[in-house]
């Protein structure tokens, strides 16, 4: 309604004000649009317990229905890719491990594989080093999926699940601590191999874990799979089919839950995955429920892989033989994490001038990498983790770009959320498993 003889209107900071001078109330009220006025814009995050870190969502709501959803990222941008350009190639692994903090070993392995391809030493990486990488990655996949299960459980109202998920993850972190010296940010997988060998007590610990985990998985299923609330919150929620996934570049468990068995470990194998026996779990519904089942099944497959990898471990070197590439320091784990072995320091300082020079050159200057570019993609717990590395022939990366599955997958959130209920935004967002450290880098 524009003008009325009975009610003049004017805009104020408080909103529209009508001055009624008598007449028909229906006419007066129809001047405001109840549907439009009910639309509100809600800013969710970046500090919200259900947005997995610092993701910010801008939701336009009509009642409880989401009309439009937009995500804002970048709050955790730390410029890791830029920083890499000012460190030598080996130091890079210390940086990339901090990107996606729930799957550090995948970041490191992808980086190491890219540098190795640039150096042309892919075939020289020892069998033991490759097996250890597989072992560590699969343990890491389990720990990452456990965190997903834990946080998603909490967000959808199953608080117990959070405690259980983090409890079992602790076993894996202990194993990591024995092997790498640290619970996260390991910098363990290095170009040319791994930083050091797996100690025997770690193997004992892994075997214990392999025995324990199937029972725990059964517990999770008893807790969640038959639970009516869990089913209500997940079934037919945030559906994304294969076409949608491919258009939006979504890979990993989300794509597999829609029915396409695309797993880089099978389709474009690396690290010798083609020699292991495991299945690629899929589901057909493409909803949160499907993603839950796929991830649970993937934990089981990873347990199989870990077992095979442990059985395969044969004594041998864990670093390439080329002393111009292999990190010269024999590392050892002390009480405060990983560091130079004191014996090695005593030797180079006391006995061998050549070793000292060699050590100094390689540590301060680093090795040179022939010019060129490569792209390596591996299957991280969240999908295709790709590394595009460019060398100009120097001792530092010229450019490293991470194709982060969290970043790419988050684009699918509006497609999942729009038209649904606001409560399902949480379920849908959680089912993508975004890690903002990886997304923003």
């Amino acid at each position: 309604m524009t003008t009325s003889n009975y009610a003049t209107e004017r805009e104020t900071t408080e909103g529209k004000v009508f001055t009624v001078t008598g007449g028909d109330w229906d006419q007066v009220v129809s001047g405001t649009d109840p549907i439009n006025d009910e639309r509100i814009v809600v800013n969710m995050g970046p500090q919200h317990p259900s947005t997995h870190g610092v993701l910010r969502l801008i939701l336009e709501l009509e009642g409880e229905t989401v009309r439009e959803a937009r995500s804002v990222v970048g709050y955790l941008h730390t410029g890791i890719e830029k920083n890499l350009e000012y460190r030598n190639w080996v130091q890079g692994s210390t940086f990339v491990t901090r990107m996606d903090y729930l799957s550090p070993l995948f970041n490191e392995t992808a980086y190491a594989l890219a540098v190795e391809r640039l150096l042309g030493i892919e075939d020289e990486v020892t069998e033991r080093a490759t097996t250890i990488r597989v072992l560590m990655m699969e343990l890491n996949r389990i720990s990452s999926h456990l965190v997903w299960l834990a946080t998603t459980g909490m967000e959808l109202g199953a608080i117990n699940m959070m405690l259980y998920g983090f409890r079992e993850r602790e076993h894996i972190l202990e194993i990591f601590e024995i092997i790498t010296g640290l619970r996260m940010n390991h910098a363990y997988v290095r170009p040319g191999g791994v930083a050091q060998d797996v100690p025997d007590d770690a193997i004992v610990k892994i075997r214990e874990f392999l025995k324990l985990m199937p029972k725990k998985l059964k517990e999770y299923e008893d807790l969640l799979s038959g639970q009516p609330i869990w089913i209500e919150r997940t079934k037919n929620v945030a559906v994304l089919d294969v076409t949608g996934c491919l258009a939006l570049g979504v890979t990993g468990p989300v794509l597999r839950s829609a029915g396409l068995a695309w797993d880089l470990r099978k389709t474009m194998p690396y690290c010798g995955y083609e020699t292991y026996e495991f299945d690629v779990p899929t589901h057909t519904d493409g909803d949160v429920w499907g993603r839950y089942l796929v991830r649970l099944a993937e934990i089981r497959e990873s347990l199989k892989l870990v077992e095979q990898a442990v059985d395969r471990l044969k004594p041998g070197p864990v670093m390439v033989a080329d002393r111009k590439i292999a990190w010269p320091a024999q590392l050892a784990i002390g009480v405060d994490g990983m560091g130079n072995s004191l014996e090695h320091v005593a030797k180079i300082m006391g006995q061998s001038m050549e070793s000292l020079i060699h050590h100094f050159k390689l540590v301060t200057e680093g090795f040179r990498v022939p010019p060129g570019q490569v792209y390596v993609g591996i299957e991280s717990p969240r999908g295709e983790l790709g590394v595009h590395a460019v060398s100009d022939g120097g001792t530092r990366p010229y450019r490293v770009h991470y194709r982060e599955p969290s970043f790419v997958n988050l684009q699918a959130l509006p497609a999942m959320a729009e038209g649904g209920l606001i409560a399902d935004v949480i379920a849908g967002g959680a089912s993508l498993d975004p890690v903002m450290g990886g997304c923003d880098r």
Partner: protein
Amino acid sequence: MTAPSEKPGGGVPVPTTPVGSTSGAPAEYPPASPAGRGMFGIHGSGDVSGFGGLVRPRKPIEESPRPYGGYFDEVRDALEEAYPAFGDAIEKVVVDRGELTLHVRPERIAEVCQVMRDDLALRFELCSSVSGVDYLGADERRLHAVYQLTSMTYRRRVRLEAAVSAEDPHLPSVTSIYPTADWQERETYDMFGIIFDGHPNLTRILMPDDWEGHPQRKDYPLGGVPVEYKGAEIPPPDRRRSYQ
């Protein structure tokens, strides 16, 4: 006026630029340029060894001879057959380290992507990654947009590369062909200032909206947080003493 002892460092004079700070590190002298010379970053004096005269030549990227091997020949032939403007659009075909790179004229990139996605013999359904590289000093068209395409049908990968100059950093967006390129093109714009024409919403994504400059460019000045320790300040990474 403060007493000398109250000054940082107890009044000991501190040089404004630390020794060896003009190291010739990348931002200052990108190694890709002819300035990637010398071994220890010594300029002007001190060098009696002759090492400072060493110049590392940087070879231009060369077209690979056929046959390429693997599936690369098939991909090239299929594209040549399906795309009549192949000769005009593809500047170079490079096979290196078991990977295929097609250097595409920037204005043709969207067309090439369309063919790569739709042709039955190519079928690159997934655009894995879009990013940029700044070849300052090595290439006149220094900003390269790099696309990694994946064919799920044939299990192949190919890389497309399109080079634009910093003065005219325009090339068509591929978002209408690969919607997944949306955020990735925004990131490339944010970091390199490459402008993707036809992108629905080309805004910054990782850096704040009001940020100036494009941080991943090689000539972007590095700030660094001043860290003071006993009067000495840690310079930004590109001005620290380092090896070349």
